[in-house]
């Protein structure tokens, strides 16, 4: 090997990557930052919840108020997630299988709830259906309660989680094109058959990914739900709201015990999400 080539090589290595010491320093700083800002908060949830032992922890979770909060949270997710799933599939079918003007505007509008503060997302439904809202008088006359009741919580949750499934499916279906579906149709399959036997198997993992993120947000939403719920114990209290109430009553162990359940939900979501990304080469939710 000629000396000039050797020196060019070492220059190249020095300039295209950091030395081992700099590398170690960068990794250490990044890990320290993540440990302080992500790991420690997560650990403290469980540690605070278990501060007075497993018995106190378990007791806090099985109080009637906590049980009813858990049930309500599951109910809210069970209604709002399927609604957004159907919407997400319909929207991405229309957007990716056909060409029409204004498509990018439509995608922007679907993303709109992401750029609205959760509190504002609750407020808009209060302005529509609250006692003082546009439909308030009519609803009161017909004895229908939306605000400070379960329908309001569902509406706010559907609004907040509106884009999740659609934004996961649109890039995926865009990439897959429509050749498979065209082949199925030309072979005589009906529209529904094509969807069930061709499209759905193609998009199932992406769909699951979107549903997963949608569900995590639906169960964990706080700001929007807090505005429309009215915080009625045993009636309109979701798990995150129950955490707040317990915390504000200085029942810290109770608050962190219920919070631990939500943290477990977050961990399950993260693990499932990572497995999906890793096995099926899906992209992360925040990527555009």
């Amino acid at each position, binding site marked *: 090997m000629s000396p000039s080539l050797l020196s060019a090589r070492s*220059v190249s290595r020095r300039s295209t990557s950091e030395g081992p010491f700099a590398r170690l320093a960068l990794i250490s700083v990044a890990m320290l930052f993540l440990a302080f800002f992500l790991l420690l908060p997560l650990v403290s949830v469980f540690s605070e919840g278990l501060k007075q032992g497993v018995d106190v922890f378990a007791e806090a979770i099985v109080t009637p108020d906590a049980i009813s909060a858990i049930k309500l949270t599951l109910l809210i997710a069970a209604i709002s997630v399927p609604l957004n799933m159907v919407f997400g599939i319909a929207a991405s079918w229309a957007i990716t299988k056909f060409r029409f003007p204004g498509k990018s505007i439509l995608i922007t509008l679907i993303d709109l709830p992401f750029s609205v503060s959760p509190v*504002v997302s609750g407020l808009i439904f209060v302005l529509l259906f609250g006692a003082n809202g546009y439909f308030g008088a009519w609803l009161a006359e017909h004895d229908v309660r939306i605000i400070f009741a379960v329908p309001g919580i569902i509406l706010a949750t559907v609004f907040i989680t509106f884009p999740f499934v659609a934004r996961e499916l649109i890039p995926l279906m865009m990439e897959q094109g429509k050749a498979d579906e065209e082949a199925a149709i030309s072979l005589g399959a009906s529209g529904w058959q094509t969807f069930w036997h061709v499209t759905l198997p193609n998009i199932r993992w992406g769909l699951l990914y979107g549903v997963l993120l949608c569900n995590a947000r639906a169960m964990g939403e706080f700001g929007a739900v807090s505005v429309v719920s009215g915080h009625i114990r045993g009636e309109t209290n979701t798990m995150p709201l129950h955490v707040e109430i317990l915390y504000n009553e200085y029942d810290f162990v109770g608050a962190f015990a219920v919070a631990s359940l939500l*943290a477990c939900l977050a961990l399950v979501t993260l693990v499932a999400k990572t497995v999906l990304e890793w096995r099926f080469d899906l992209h992360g939710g925040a990527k555009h």
Partner: protein
Amino acid sequence: MADTPPSPLARAVPPGKPALRPFRKRSALPGFSLTFGFTIGWLTLIVLIPLATIFLRSAGMGWAEFVRVGFSDRAIAAYRLSFGTAAAAGAVNAVFGLLVAWVLVRYDFTGKRIIGALVDLPFALPTAVAGIALTALYAPNGWIGRYLEQFGIKVAFTPLGIVIALVFIGLPFVVRSVEPVLADLGKDVEEAAATLGANRFHVFSQIIFPAIAPALLTGFALSFARGVGEYGSVIFISGNMPGKTEIAPLLIVTQLEQYAYAGATAIATVMMLASFAILLLINVIQAASRARYGA
């Protein structure tokens, strides 16, 4: 598909149908009116009409009243706090988010996959849980707070606490924006620069940074926008003193609890217009960077 000639399938439309639809291009696939109609209808019902009520209400209250309640001293203090802390948190996240993305993309080390997954924790953890956890950590008797207390640094119940909460919430936006761009960046340009005599610092500042700057700016903007509207993780750690540690979303809630609908609406309108302006800015940045790099 723009340049391909019409596929034979497209011509197989039954002859009874109109030859050319003015709105959409012909397609062999069914279900356009069903899915498009459902999409537009559901979007209008759930998103557009509810959002429009905010502007309708604001327009209905008249300019003078809007300015009086939307720009009261208390509201201005809240905007200043919300936008200021969100910008500070966005800046912290831009620096450390870039560092985390860099380490995750460029280096190999044990536990990298777990760390990579952990970055998304703020997306998955309910904000109220994050809020009470951070408060417990940074309170004067907390794991971190008690050590900071010895140095006279107060975090919980001060604007600094709000920044901490917003750093937590916004971090994944920066990491996830920068990561793919950094991964796509070819080593060849860096090698070319190196053989031409550039040192590592020059390669980073002249080659790498300009290429990832638009993504970094997008991440900052996303983190900032999320921070401005954030509520759940902030209200526990902020202390909520009017004029001092009262963020704008909390002020909306306070106004609502006092049945001051006009105030809540006006403040929400100001915040929403600001958010949309940020969203527009993100799109402009992305369009500009696409035009520049021809992606």
